[in-house]
C-alpha cells in the first residue's frame, strides 16, 4: 500500500462497489442488506483467519494463485485512462495488454481450483475455463470496435480521439451492451455465476480456499469489478474528459458506479443459466451483435474519417 497508492484507492473503491452491489441487491430483493463497513469487516475477518491448505493440494500453486489474480487486476488499471485522457502508463497496443491482464484472474481461478484437488473445485475450474471461451470473444470484439473507429489500439489515444469527436461514443452503444453481458460472465455474476453455482458445486473454485488466501481472492474480484467497469467506462463512455481534475474524478466515479449498478440489477432479475445455455447464448446471439458493431464502425470509419 505504501509502494503503490493506487492499490489503496482500488481497495477502497472496490469495497464501496461491493457494498453498493450487495445493498442494492438486498433492497431490490426486499431485504435490509449489509451495513456500509461489511466488505471491510469481511476482509479483515478473512485475513486474520488461519489458511487451511488441503493435504492433497499443491501448496505453492494453491498459495500463489490469489496473489497472481490480485496483481494482474491491479496492474491492468495502470493502462486505463481514468479521468482525463492520460493513463498512468501507455504505449501502442495497451488495450490488448489490459484485456490479457483481465483474463489472468480467470486462469488463476482455473489453476487454483484445479490444484486444490477437491472435486467441486475441479468442476468449478473446468466450468470457469469453459465460460471463458464463451464470453471472451464477444468482449474482445466489442471493445475492438471503438478502437477501430479511433484507429488506435492504445486506450489513451482512444480517449484523445473521442475527446476531440465528442458524440462519436454514441455509435458504440451495441458494443456497450455486449460488453456488459461479457463482463457479467467475466465477473461470474448471476446469470453467469456457473463456475461457483452454490447449489451444485458448493463454491466451485473457492471451495477449499479459506482465510487470507480467500480474502485475497475476494479482494481481487472486488478490484476486478472496478477495473472492468473502468475499462468499459474508458472505452464506451468517453465524455467529459477535459473537465478539471476534481470534477473529472467525480464523473469517473459516477460512470463506474453506474456500471456497477447495472451489474447489480442484472444479477437480481435473472436466474442462473446452465453452461450449455450460456455457450449457445454467447455464440449465437452475443457474438453476431459484436460482429455487427465492428461492421458498423468500419463503415462509419469510411464515411466520417478521411
Amino acid at each position, binding site marked *: 500500500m505504501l509502494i503503490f497508492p493506487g492499490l489503496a484507492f482500488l481497495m477502497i473503491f472496490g469495497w464501496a462497489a461491493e457494498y453498493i452491489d450487495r445493498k442494492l441487491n438486498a433492497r431490490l430483493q426486499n431485504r435490509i442488506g449489509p451495513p456500509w463497513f461489511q466488505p471491510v469487516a469481511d476482509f479483515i475477518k478473512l485475513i486474520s483467519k488461519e489458511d487451511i491448505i488441503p493435504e492433497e493440494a499443491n501448496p505453492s500453486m494453491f498459495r500463489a494463485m490469489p496473489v497472481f489474480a490480485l496483481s494482474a487486476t491491479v496492474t491492468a488499471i495502470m493502462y486505463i485512462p481514468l479521468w482525463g485522457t492520460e493513463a498512468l502508463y501507455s504505449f501502442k497496443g495497451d488495450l490488448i495488454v489490459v484485456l490479457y491482464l483481465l483474463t489472468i484472474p480467470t486462469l488463476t481461478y482455473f489453476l487454483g481450483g484445479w490444484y486444490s484437488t477437491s472435486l467441486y473445485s475441479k*468442476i468449478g475450474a473446468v466450468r470457469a475455463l469453459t465460460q471463458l471461451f464463451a464470453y471472451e470473444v464477444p468482449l474482445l470484439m466489442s471493445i475492438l470496435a471503438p478502437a477501430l473507429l479511433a484507429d488506435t489500439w492504445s486506450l489513451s489515444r482512444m480517449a484523445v480521439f473521442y475527446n476531440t469527436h465528442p458524440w462519436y461514443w454514441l455509435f458504440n452503444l451495441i458494443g456497450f451492451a455486449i460488453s456488459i453481458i461479457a463482463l457479467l460472465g467475466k465477473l461470474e455474476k*448471476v446469470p453467469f455465476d456457473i463456475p461457483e*453455482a452454490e*447449489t*451444485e458445486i458448493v463454491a466451485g473454485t473457492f471451495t477449499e480456499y479459506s482465510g487470507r488466501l480467500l480474502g485475497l481472492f475476494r479482494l481481487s474480484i472486488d478490484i476486478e469489478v472496478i477495473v472492468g467497469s473502468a475499462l468499459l467506462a474508458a472505452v464506451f463512455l468517453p465524455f467529459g474528459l477535459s473537465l478539471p481534475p476534481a470534477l473529472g474524478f467525480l464523473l469517473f466515479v459516477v460512470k463506474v458506479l453506474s456500471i456497477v449498478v447495472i451489474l447489480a440489477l442484472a444479477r*437480481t432479475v435473472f436466474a442462473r443459466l446452465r*453452461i450449455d445455455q450460456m455457450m449457445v447464448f454467447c455464440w449465437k446471439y452475443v457474438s453476431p451483435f459484436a460482429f455487427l458493431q465492428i461492421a458498423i464502425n468500419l463503415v462509419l470509419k469510411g464515411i466520417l474519417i478521411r
Partner: protein
Amino acid sequence: MHKVIIPIGPQHPMLKEPESFSVTLSGEKIMKFSARLGYNHRGIEKACEERTYVQDVYLTERICGICSHSHSTCFVQAVEEIAKLEVPKRALYIRTLVAELERIHSHLLWLGVAGHEVGFDTLLMYSWRDREIVMDILASLTGNRVNYGLNAIGGVRRDVSAEQIKDVLKAVDALEERTKYYIQIATQETTLINRLSGVGILSPKDAIKLGAVGPTARASGVDRDVRRDDPYAAYADLKFKVITDDHNDVYGRTLVRMGELIESYSMIRQLAKKMPEGPIAVKAPRKIPAGEATSRYEAPRGEDVHYVRSNGTDKPDRVKVRAPTLANIQTVAKMLEDRQLADLPIVIAAIDPCFSCTDRVTMVREADKRSKKLMEWEELHSYSIHWYKHHGIDFSDLNKKMRKKLG
C-alpha cells in the same frame, strides 16, 4: 474430464436436510445417480408404539416440519375410524381450513426453494416474504407457525372465531394477487423458463410405474388427487378442480403447484362461507378398541398414508407412515437420465422432498436364512468404512494421520 463420482450430501448447500446422493459425472453429464436415505432416521414409528394415542397425535405432527398438520390429521383419521367416532362437522371444516392454509405455505416455500436452486434468489426472497402472510394467519388460528397442535382424536382443540375468518379471507385476497404475479413470472421470465422447461422429464407411464404421487404425478398428466378420489374431512362439500399438466417436466410441476394455490384460495373462501355451527370435538375413549385402519390424505407433497393397528389398550400396536417423498424419490433417478449436473438441484427440489419424513430403518435379511440380521457396533463400523471405500471415499489414510498426530 474423465469420469468422477461426486458426493452430494450428507452436507451440501443444495440440501436443506442431510441426505446422501452420489452422482457419476462424465464432464457435465450425469451418468449414474444413486440416493442413499437414512441420515435423518428418528424412529418415530417405534416411538409411537410406546406412547398413548393422545401423545402420538403430537408425535406424528413432528414427522414433518412443513406438512405437520397433514401427518397428524392422517393419524387421527385412522384412529377415529378404528374407534368409530363421529367427528363434528365444524371440526372437519376447521381441519380442512388449516390443511389448505398449510398447502399454501408449503407451495410458496417450494417456489422460493426452486428459485434458489436455479440461482434466482430474488424469487426466493419475494415468495418467502409473502409466505409470512399465511404463516401469521396460521399462528393466529392455532398459536404456532408450524406444528399447530390443532388436532385431537375426535375433533380439534381450538375453535375459529368470526373475526379470525375475516382475517383469513383478507389474507387470501392478498395472497391471490401475489400468486398471480408469480404465475406471470414463471410463464414469462426467460432465464427461469430456460432452466425449468424440458428438465426432469417424467412420462405419464413412468409416473404411474414408479408410483409418483401429488404434484409430481399431476404434472405428468396423472389425474390423481385423494381430496377428490377419496374425500376426507370437508372436501366432499367443496368444489375444486384437480390441476394437471402435460408438460411432464419441472416447468409443469411449477405450474401445477401455482394452480393448486389458486384452487386453495377458492376452497378457503368456500370453507369460510359454509362453516357450520356446532361443537368442535367429541370425547374420545382413552383405550381404543382392537382393530386396524388405513388413512389417506393429500399432503402438499402428495398422498400421505398412515396405517394404525390397535390392540385394545391405550397404546397403538403398530403405526406405519408412508410419507409422499418416499413415493416420489424413486422418480428422481429416472428424471435425471442424460441430464447435466446443473439440473440436479432443481430436479431433486421439484419433487419437493422432505427427507426426514422419509427415512426408515432398513432390515437386512440374508438370502438363505429367513431371520433378520442384526449388526454389532464393530461390524456396522467396518461396514460403513467398506461402503465409503466402495464409493471412492477413503478415510483410512486420514485416520492414520490423525492417530500419528495425536501420538
